[in-house]
């Protein structure tokens, strides 16, 4: 199994897909990288030569913020919002949506699974 950028081990998929297993590289970046390297995106990852792999690694290393560095950068941005006590930082702290979405309903991605609270008449199956 080929290795690009440390621990990422894309597999038998076409290289343009395999590259996307790296955190921070999506469909667009994947295509751009392959174009720069002059490698056909349809070639399977395991069919690439070591030279080609090294080339890809070089391009990614030089131009893209990926994996740990990217995660750190994102966490830092959020941390900054928290530190300056801004509204957005507060929403992050409370685990609520940050970009002004409604919270009366939905918002389950941020709030997590429903925590049922019984109303006056009780909730079905909670008697």
């Amino acid at each position: 199994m080929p290795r690009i950028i440390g621990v990422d081990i894309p597999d038998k998929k076409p290289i343009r897909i395999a590259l996307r297993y790296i955190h921070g590289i999506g469909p667009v970046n994947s295509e751009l990288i392959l174009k720069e390297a002059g490698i056909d995106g349809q070639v399977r990852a395991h069919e690439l030569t070591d030279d080609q792999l090294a080339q890809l690694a070089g391009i990614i290393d030089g131009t893209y913020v990926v994996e740990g560095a990217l995660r750190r950068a994102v966490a830092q941005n959020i941390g900054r919002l928290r530190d300056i006590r801004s509204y957005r930082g507060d929403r992050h702290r409370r685990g609520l949506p940050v970009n002004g979405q409604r919270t009366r309903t939905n918002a389950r991605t941020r709030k997590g699974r429903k925590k049922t609270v019984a109303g006056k008449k009780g909730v079905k199956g909670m008697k």
Partner: protein
Amino acid sequence: MARSLKKGPFVNEKLFRKVEKLTQMDRREPIKTWARSCTIVPEFVGHTFLVHNGKIFNNVFVTEDMVGHKLGEFSPTRLFRGHTIGTKAQRASGSVK
């Protein structure tokens, strides 16, 4: 959606002039303001603002990190005290934990 670069950041003129005046006099007393939509520009750093939230004026000391944000972002308009734990009767009936 981001604001057009052509226009530059929105800064309340009056407030900006006041800040400049205070800086010139080398004074740092808090500035009372209702201009929540005013972007914080580098000139504001080190000043204290009293930003209205619809009811009271919240103390906002501007640091370098806040540049680019709006004054209103630091003066919350809502107060959430949490949900009730339910009445005694509700807890007794087991409908509320």
